[in-house]
């Protein structure tokens, strides 16, 4: 729900505050992005194949973009992380343990923002506003849930919302009501991100002080495992 808008706003704001930002998102890997898009133009992409293709895309971005950026002290914003993939898998009846084990090497994000809408009807409004019509996969047409795209879309998105709601407690999503204006959602996002940054800098400060007390000549770079990934969950 306005994920890309919010990421763009957040990025500009963070950069204006002097933070380096990497933004990335599903299907944006150099390795598999194009292949996934091509595979999705046909309707022969099976559910297991789809999962693994997305996992390839994710791991490529993790290893080649996100981890190097985090190591160099960037803030990483990602438009969907592993949770959207896991939700899609679950709706398709795929064993969640299998999916979880595939993504075993993913980092736990510092925050997962879930832009939540109240009903699939609100998503329909967005589809109509986009002028592009219903997308085959976003409507879950591969699952044969309804007579047509509309029915299928409503059913599919209802199931997705249920899975996300369940994941909210399981993975500690920070829920933002996305039915509000862009301005107020963006303000909430900034506030939440600012809090994380302040915390993280406070930790850095105390670590640097501790380090300089014990080892004055230490010139080691920042810890490699400093994670500042934020997932903006799907819908």
């Amino acid at each position, binding site marked *: 729900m306005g994920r890309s808008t919010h990421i763009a706003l957040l990025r500009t704001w963070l950069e204006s505050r002097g933070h380096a930002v990497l933004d990335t998102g599903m299907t944006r890997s150099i390795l598999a992005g194009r292949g996934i898009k091509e595979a999705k133009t046909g309707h022969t992409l099976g559910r*297991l194949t789809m999962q693994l293709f997305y996992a390839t895309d994710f791991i*490529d971005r993790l290893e080649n973009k996100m981890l190097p950026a985090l190591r160099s002290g960037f803030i990483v914003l990602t438009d969907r992380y592993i949770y959207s993939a896991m939700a899609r898998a679950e709706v398709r009846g795929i064993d969640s343990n299998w999916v979880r084990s595939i993504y075993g090497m993913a980092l736990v994000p510092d925050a997962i923002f879930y832009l939540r809408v109240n009903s699939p009807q609100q998503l329909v409004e967005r589809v109509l506003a986009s002028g592009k019509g219903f997308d085959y996969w976003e409507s879950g047409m591969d699952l044969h849930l309804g007579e047509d795209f509309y029915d299928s879309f409503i059913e599919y998105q209802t199931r997705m919302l249920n899975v996300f709601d369940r994941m909210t407690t399981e993975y500690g999503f920070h829920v933002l009501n996305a039915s509000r204006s862009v301005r107020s959602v963006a303000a909430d996002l900034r506030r939440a991100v600012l809090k994380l940054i302040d915390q993280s800098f406070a930790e850095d400060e105390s670590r640097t002080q501790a380090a300089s007390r014990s080892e004055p000549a230490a010139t080691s770079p920042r810890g490699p495992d400093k994670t500042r990934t934020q997932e903006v969950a799907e819908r």
Partner: protein
Amino acid sequence: MIKYGNHRFPGKLFVVEGTDGSGKSTQLTLLYQWLKAEGYPVSFSEWNSSPLVKATTKRAKKRHLFTPATFSLLHATDFADRTERDIIPPLKAGSIVLADRYIYTAFARDVARGCDRDWVRDVYSFAVRPNVAFFFRAPLKVAVDRIVSGRPRLKYYEAGSDMGWSDDPEESFTIFQGKILDEYDRMVDEFGLTKIDATQSIEKQQREMRKLISQHLSRRRFKAH
């Protein structure tokens, strides 16, 4: 999820495995000809041949885009597509399916590249267990000589050049194949692979294969017409 495991489909799945240069593809072709001549419906699935994934793999190999993990995952993607498309449907329909390389290839290669043994097995846990998995075992030197003498140049990932073991492709290839062979050897018991001595004559190996496979075939053949 549907975990296929030991399948109950009416068809049969036979796969061949082994290092490059072990002669497995030759043996599989001979087997195919025989089964055809005997009147069985046979279909064929080759490693790395999914129409959805092929272009991505090709481009990634050319541009050296892979890490061990993404190499593994993209090959798993290819394999998943073939499982969903070329392997399960014919097995359900009662066909014999022959596969040139199967999950054991991934287990051997990816672990040789440093992927976690359990992780790779988990990734492929959706695979159908073959009725027979042949492992053509040739000593390292024999296999390496067969490949190196037959090819003008070893390809980057084929030689394991991405791992930085050696700047010399031939030396890197030998190291890589050695690690792969070790993995195969430890899988013989783990997965009950049927080991065939690939230094024997082609005819002898083929006789061995046919004898074993006959035990899995019903006397009543499904004639095409």
